[in-house]
């Protein structure tokens, strides 16, 4: 997902869940900041480097892909963008393959429940992080947050499916400057790299930005799928993501006593269903304006554009002993907690791809 959903749509979901305008802004700012909080940014403002929630393209290009480097990449991408759906799923193959397969992302897994519960009674920044993670479990379904050719690769069998279920071939190319062309069905993606652990094989890089476009309905053959096709209906799945975000935030506000998987807030968003589905289905690369208009309609207030410098300025200007109490400080703390929880869970499942967990090892002893 991209800024249109993580920022503007998250604002709408927060407002529908009962948050005030100001609270909704705090939630959606943090949800979007997950896509901006890189090591480069953290170093620049002197913030804890463990709080990195993303990696810039050039950071990735320079990232080591030996075991330690891959563990660092996996901790970031599995914790915030590709939350594993089932860490204990049974699959044929040796451990090397099984560990990778078990990191495939999907909605309604145990970890998404843990993620939401972790944000309970915490800061609005923690809520924003949880909403980013939850939303991405829908968009990034079928891809893993670890560099792996045998999991994340795609082939030429890639088709867009229209509303009458007709297929249109999708062509990929690597010309970044040209960008995606919806009408021609041409999209950019990462370069094919035969190295299993190449950064080119991280997440949905081999499927380009298609998983992040809400209008896209497509069929493809995932590398892990044993020659079976997968159909992804983004408008329908994004609608569920939106509905689940509203439900999760109602739980976080205490309006729903328990958070359970596969539960949604369809009743709350039902009056706006046509509007939301309309935005999600519109064929456009960026739906920011539509979501912004919807948000303004809902609250009657203006939604300021996302400004990456807000957190940085606030954090830099705070005295050392007050940094933890800033919104940015709370974001960093929540990010470390989320990363710790996911790393612990992956390690506890016997999978070392995200590294070791001192806490889990200590408990085992």
């Amino acid at each position, binding site marked *: 997902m991209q800024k249109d959903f993580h920022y503007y749509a998250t604002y709408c979901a927060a407002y529908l869940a009962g948050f005030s305008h100001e609270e909704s802004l705090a939630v959606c700012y943090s949800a979007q900041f997950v896509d901006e909080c890189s090591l480069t940014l953290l170093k620049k403002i002197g913030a804890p480097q463990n709080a990195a929630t993303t990696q810039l393209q050039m950071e990735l*290009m320079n990232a080591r892909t030996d075991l330690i480097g891959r563990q660092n990449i996996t901790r970031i991408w599995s914790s915030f963008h590709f939350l594993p759906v089932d860490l204990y799923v049974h699959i044929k193959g040796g451990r090397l393959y099984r560990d990778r397969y078990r990191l495939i992302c999907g909605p309604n897994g145990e970890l998404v429940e843990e993620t939401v519960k972790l944000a309970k009674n915490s800061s609005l920044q923690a809520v924003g992080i949880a909403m980013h993670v939850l939303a991405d479990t829908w968009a990034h379904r079928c891809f893993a947050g670890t560099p792996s050719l045998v999991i994340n*690769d795609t082939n030429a069998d890639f088709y867009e499916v229209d509303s009458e279920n007709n297929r249109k071939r999708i062509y990929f190319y690597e010309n970044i400057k040209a960008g995606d062309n919806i009408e021609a069905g041409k999209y950019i993606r990462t370069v094919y790299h035969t190295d*299993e652990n190449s950064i080119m094989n991280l997440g949905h890089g081999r499927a380009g930005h298609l998983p992040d476009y809400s209008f896209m309905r497509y069929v493809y053959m995932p590398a892990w799928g044993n020659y079976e096709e997968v159909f992804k209906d983004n408008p329908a799945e994004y609608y569920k993501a939106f509905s689940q975000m509203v439900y999760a935030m109602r739980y976080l506000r205490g309006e729903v006593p328990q958070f359970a998987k596969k539960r949604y807030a369809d009743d709350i968003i039902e009056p706006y269903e046509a509007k939301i589905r309309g935005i999600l289905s519109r064929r456009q690369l960026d739906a920011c304006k539509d979501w912004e208009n919807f948000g303004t309609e809902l609250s009657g207030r203006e939604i300021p554009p996302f400004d990456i410098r807000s957190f940085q300025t606030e954090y830099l200007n705070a005295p050392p002993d007050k940094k933890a109490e800033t919104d940015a400080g709370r974001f960093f703390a929540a990010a470390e907690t989320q990363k710790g929880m996911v790393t612990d869970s992956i390690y506890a499942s016997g999978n070392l791809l995200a590294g070791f967990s001192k806490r889990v090892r200590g408990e085992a002893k």
Partner: protein
Amino acid sequence: MTAVKRVSSFFAGLFMVYTAILFTLAPDDALSLVMFFMSLALLFTGIRMFFYYFTLARHKTGGLAVLYRAAVIFDAGLFAIDLPDFPLVYVMIYLAAIHAVAGIAAILKALESKRLEAPSWKLNLVHGIGSTSIALLCLFYSKSVRIAVYIYSAGLFYSGIIRIIQAFRKTQNIYVQ
């Protein structure tokens, strides 16, 4: 990194540094050794790809292609080792290509860092210009045995030092809630 990996990384680094120094002391004799190493690298790449196929790629849609590629590369490695004389120009093209890619990547990283106002951009830019210059040097002096050996040795020396540093590097992989 495990203790065994640390030790092996340290000794491999030491060996690479030592070999690089030896090569630069006797560049005319070293070329045949450089070429032998490169052929050996091809051979081991083939073996590694066979291992990759049997452990991972056999589960992948279209993974059989990995098996075919492994066979071809392994065969090419055997063939290259058997060749009595390897054309120098191929060595230079290989060296130019790896340095050019590294140089362009570092320059792009520098531009991105500068845009984000990160102080590391100058170091990246110097690294990028250095690597790109070496790539150009390879192309301009594609018939010089000495230049080929010096550039290969510099790369070997650098990799060796990095391996030694990595052997002593603190492992940062523990998170506590």
